[in-house]
């Protein structure tokens, strides 16, 4: 095994491991087979598992996700790719009304063990319709688990958990992280859904991050250390289940919370996390809670404009310093 692997390759590796373990795991999506994925996240799958298990579909997002649902209800474990997460809007009926509800509304008669994987997030100059961080769209609907790894070993470990899960999981792969590298995941590596990971210990302030904002938070923490502020960085890894306990535990120590999101402030997942803390963790707080999220505008094309909208290390460092001084 190489001693580093890209996040991108970890996606294909994570899927392949599960396909080897379990013949009921099958993939479908646009250009995932012969083309090996628009983001090269399905490299090798067609070759290893053949066209029966790796199906190229037409541009029919509703049919893709709806068919995955029907297959999941009848004994398969489909992994459906929606190429860009923005296109979840094109099959949102399945995301919002069908997949998360069918088990409940049938009184538990059916099970929907499927994964919808999708490339999420901005920073690449893809403009308003191909850059969004839309984990909040999915978080708005009870009944879906949500994974959004920030490292290549978590990609593999969470992919294993997602595919083995008997509950539907939406799996966000961040476009901005695809080229990042990390140690390869050990054989059989599985990361339980809903367990946050403390990426850096600290005493003064808790930075809660997800996916692309994890490296931002880590870089900011490094800079903050230079300014004498000790920041703890928590990678949530999943939004559902949401590991509130990990955040509250950290606040016992730091008493200051900053949540760093890529999705827009308006309607972002951080609002829910903050509201739990402002209720159950109120007595722990020594200062206002800060959310650093994308501005409430569509994503602009130009780099320089996009950098204004999506929070970067400078903005985070500055805001945390202000808070630390509170």
């Amino acid at each position: 095994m190489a001693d580093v692997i890209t996040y991108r390759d970890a996606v294909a590796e994570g899927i392949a491991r599960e396909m080897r373990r379990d013949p009921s795991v099958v993939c479908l999506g646009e250009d995932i087979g012969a083309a090996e994925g628009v983001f090269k996240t399905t490299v090798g799958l067609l070759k290893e598992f053949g066209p029966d298990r790796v199906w190229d579909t037409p541009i029919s997002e509703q049919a893709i996700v709806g068919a995955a649902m029907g297959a999941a209800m009848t004994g398969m474990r489909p992994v459906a790719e929606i190429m860009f997460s923005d296109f979840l809007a094109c099959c949102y009926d399945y995301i919002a009304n069908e997949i998360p509800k069918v088990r409940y509304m049938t009184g538990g008669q059916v099970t929907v063990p499927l994964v919808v994987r999708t490339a999420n997030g901005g920073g690449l100059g893809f403009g308003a319709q191909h850059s969004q961080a839309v984990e909040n769209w999915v978080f708005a609907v009870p009944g879906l688990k949500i994974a959004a790894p920030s490292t290549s070993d978590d990609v593999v470990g969470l992919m294993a958990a997602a595919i083995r899960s008997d509950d539907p999981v939406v799996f966000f792969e961040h476009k901005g992280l695809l080229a990042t590298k990390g140690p390869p995941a050990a054989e059989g590596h599985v990361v339980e859904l809903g367990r946050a990971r403390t990426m850096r210990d600290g005493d003064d302030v808790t930075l809660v991050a997800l996916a692309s904002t994890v490296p931002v938070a880590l870089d900011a923490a490094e800079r903050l250390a230079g300014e004498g502020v000790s920041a703890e960085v928590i990678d949530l890894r999943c939004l559902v289940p949401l590991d509130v306990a990990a955040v509250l535990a950290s606040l016992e120590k730091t008493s200051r919370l900053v949540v760093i999101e890529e999705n827009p402030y308006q309607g972002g997942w951080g609002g829910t996390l903050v509201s739990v803390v402002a209720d159950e963790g109120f007595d722990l707080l020594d200062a206002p809670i800060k959310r650093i999220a994308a501005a409430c505008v569509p994503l602009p094309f130009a780099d320089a404009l996009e950098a204004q909208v999506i929070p970067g290390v400078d903005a985070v460092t500055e805001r945390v310093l202000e808070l630390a001084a509170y």
Partner: protein
Amino acid sequence: MTETTVRPASELDAHDVLALYEQMQLIRRTERAAHDLFMSGLVKGTTHLAAGQEAVAVGASAALRPDDYVFATYRGHHHAMARGATPEECLAELMSRATGLCRAKGGSMHLTKASSGMLGSYAIVGSHLPMAVGAAWSARLRGTEQVAVAFFGDGTTNIGAFHESLNLAAVWRLPVLFVCENNFYMEYTPIGAVTAVPHPAADRAGAHALPSEVIDGNDVLVVYDAVRRAAERARAGDGPTVIEAETYRHFGHSRADPATYRPADEVERWLDHDPLDIARDRLGALNVSDDAVEQADARARRVVDDAIEAAKNAPDADPAEAFTDVWADGGNAWRT
């Protein structure tokens, strides 16, 4: 009927056809009961009754294998019952009882009997067609020779998911049947007013290189034969078929809708073409006595009367049920 008994309609005997008739009676009476219970306030929310459309469900189900999959709409009582749900389970569901088919969490629009392959009733128009395609894909992958059937209304043919499903199923030559119950109306608007072609389902099949048929959906044996042939083709690997079964609902669209938007002569013509009458004529031709038919009627009546009583007397759903069955572990925890 199991696989080996899916013979052409012409080979069905009096006993077989009487069984189909009795099942239609059972559905008709259950639908009437649902209507009356709604009107008397014992059924809450909404209902979309299928009285008048029984032949589609009963004919189709009889032509399928027990392990085939069925997906239906909010107007799905007939499909649930044709696939083995009892009138009691159904009425109990409508009446919010603990003994309901979906433990009172689904209601009229979501009747489901997964244990006999009836994989749900869906209330968003068109949403279940891709699911049926997926179930057919799954059958192919597992090599089971099962067939999946999606039942849907005429109005459904104008929503995008319909076309995405037909194309995907056609390209993959999947064992799926698309059965349109063309009852000529959406909610209150005639389908002809909003559709560019006269046969909303059948006239679209060609756009996906699929064979199609327009049939009398009120003749249970016609439905049976069309579905039998299509299922045979599907199992043989010859891909999907679109069947447009013309039929008519006896009640309004939902709840207490009096359906005054339908011309009186049209209603009359269709009431004269009642699937029960047609089946009775078929029985006559097979020399089944009036007496035997009346006995079937009486059996159906008894079952439904008993079902009404049982449902009325069943315990209410436990409020704690509101918090179960979100996840496969039975719970609903979304956070630590």
